């Protein structure tokens, strides 16, 4: 039988928002806690808006982050501007925290390349959303290698799902990070499902953090629905990496409360009871209960917050809607630093086809 190896699991707040032990010192900063709450609330509201926009045909397929707001919020906050995020596609929370504008995120999912051409100063070197599963882990190691080569005190942070941890790219990257002691942090959003494939059919590893052992690097679990735990452990991992002490794998244990994407219908393969049970552990209510307990939050503040965020989101949607149609020639203009002359004719042909489509370029 495989050895059973203990992996640490960190949780600060239980489902009721009660501390399940001593809290880290930084929890004394009420502003940080309120920021977390505000941000997670924004993420959820924005996420709902994205799903609604997809349902009404205003954007394409969208991957909801419902129930997993704590992870990206915490990790985006734990990073500094100098660090680089190499995300996957379920990182709305992280991208927002990094400063990517909501209208850019909408543009991306709306099928517009300009959505990855953001100008947010804190995210200028961040990678775009990565769709081919786990490939981003290799890019993160490349970015971290660049930091190491140039001896910059910066950290590459990459995210992926539980399913992604089965793919060679992820495993090869962990191995490299270990042997090169790269300044990289792997954050796994273990939301228990890879589309219809449950965690139990993805790997026999007792925890996904065990995969770190194979690479000789530290691996640990956190309660991914406890923003305090996620923030605390990822911050420590990032600072370890920055200090030249090597990579860490942090598995955030959470649950995908939504469908895989708007193209999916999870009721086909997922038990309704499992879902309603999972709702009991979701991250926002938990933090809210804690804040209530601390006297930092009340119903009125909540109402006000919802109104504020609603306005921000509506403004972003407006900005997205009024984005002028992109120049179809851009597909060639950004193919190379400079377009070789011999591509001109094809570019012209593309413009003709685009023009023929006229207003109907969308469908």
């Amino acid at each position, binding site marked *: 039988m495989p050895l059973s190896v203990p992996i640490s699991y960190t949780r600060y707040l239980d489902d009721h928002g009660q501390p399940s032990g001593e809290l880290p010192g930084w929890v004394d900063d009420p502003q940080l806690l309120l920021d977390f709450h505000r941000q997670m609330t924004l993420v959820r509201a924005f996420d709902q808006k994205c799903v609604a926009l997809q349902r009404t045909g205003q954007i*394409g*397929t969208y991957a909801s982050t419902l129930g997993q707001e704590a992870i990206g919020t915490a990790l985006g906050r734990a990073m500094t501007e100098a660090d680089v995020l190499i995300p996957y*596609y379920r990182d709305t929370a992280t991208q927002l925290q990094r400063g990517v504008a909501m209208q850019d995120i909408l543009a991306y*999912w*709306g*099928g*517009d*390349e300009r959505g990855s051409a953001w100008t947010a100063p804190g995210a200028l070197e961040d990678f775009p959303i990565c*769709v*081919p*599963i*786990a490939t981003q882990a290799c890019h993160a190691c490349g970015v971290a290698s660049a930091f190491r080569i140039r001896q910059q005190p910066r950290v590459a942070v990459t995210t992926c799902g539980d*399913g*992604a941890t*089965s*793919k*060679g*790219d992820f495993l090869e990257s962990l191995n490299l990070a270990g042997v090169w002691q790269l300044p990289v942090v792997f954050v796994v959003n273990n939301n228990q499902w*890879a*589309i*219809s*494939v449950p965690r139990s*059919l*993805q*790997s026999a590893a007792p925890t996904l953090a065990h995969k770190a052992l194979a690479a000789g690097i530290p691996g640990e679990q956190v309660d991914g629905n406890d923003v305090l735990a996620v923030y605390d452990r990822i911050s420590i991992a990032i600072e370890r990496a920055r200090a030249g002490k090597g990579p860490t794998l942090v598995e955030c244990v959470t649950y995908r409360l939504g469908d895989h994407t708007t*193209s*999916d219908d999870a009721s*086909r*393969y997922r038990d309704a009871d499992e879902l309603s049970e999972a709702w009991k552990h979701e991250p926002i209510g938990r933090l809210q209960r804690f804040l209530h307990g601390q006297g930092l939050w009340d119903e009125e503040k909540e109402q006000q917050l919802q109104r504020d965020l609603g306005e921000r989101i509506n403004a972003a949607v407006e900005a997205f809607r009024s984005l002028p149609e*992109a120049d*179809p020639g851009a*597909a*060639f203009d950004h*193919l190379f630093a400079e377009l070789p002359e011999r*591509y001109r004719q*094809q570019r012209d*042909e*593309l413009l*003709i*086809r*685009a023009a*023929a*489509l006229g207003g*109907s*370029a*969308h*469908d």
Partner: protein
Amino acid sequence: MTERKPVCMVEAINLALHRAMADDPDVVVLGEDVGPNGGVFRATVGLHERFGFRRVMDTPLAETLITGIAVGMAAQGLKPVAEIQFMGFIYAGMEHLVSHASRLRSRTRGRLSCPMVMRTPHGGGIHAPEHHGESTEALLAHVPGLRVVVPSSPRRAYGLLLAAIADPDPVIFLEPSRLYRSVQQVVEDDGQALPLDTCFTLREGKDLTLVSWGAALKETLEAASRLAEEGIDCEVIDVATLKPLDGDTILASVGKTGRCIIVHEAARSYGPGAEIAALVQEQLFYSLHAPVQRVTGFDCVIPYARQEMAYLPDVDSICEAGRQTMRGNDQ
């Protein structure tokens, strides 16, 4: 059981999979989400319930692995039908396709073989996210030892998939996702395979041969109708099996018409159309009335959903190329 109501292509594929699995216990299905979920496009619906998890396997998320284990299963005489969720995710399996699947028979001089099928949705036009609109069939068609098949209707999907599964060698089966639900046909679920390695002539004509495959046949056929109104009589050939290419059918047609246009979604340069153009001019140089033309996707990254339609060959472009080709010598 004979199914008589019209079905769409993805249903026809599902029928063929059910049929093949029922007829041959060596047929197994594997891939991501092909089990209880029935495939993200619903091509494998009902297989898991009917044939059980032993023969319908949800794999971990790893395309290298999916391709590689299909090779291992096939070497044991199973007939694995592996699904790659989108063609854009096939690349991680390339090493196994190029260095193993296509060669196992040759490397062992026939001691082992690799009767696997790899199914994957192909092509753009469904406004899916990035990397979901790939048509890189040329990468596979260039590899010696692989068969590459692209059906263009529910009936051909049914018959060609049965043929692919029955074939004793590896077959890549590319399913135009744009056609999955857009066309319906009555498909006799009679277990009858269609011939591989054979083009289908979808429309006869004497002036101009239009050669295409998969979803682009929709625009090609439409262009043929439109050109007919202008008095240009087009023959339309569905290549169906890109590799090995049925040159005979294409050459016979162009031998008759003296003119040829190839239509495909894939990028133009080093694309599949180049082979057909090269072949036609090699063989029919002295009877061609005009250069073989290509109406294709472009040599840029296929745009995201909002502008992807501008990338795909449209009816106008095909018609315009047709008119030009007819003008031929007068240029």
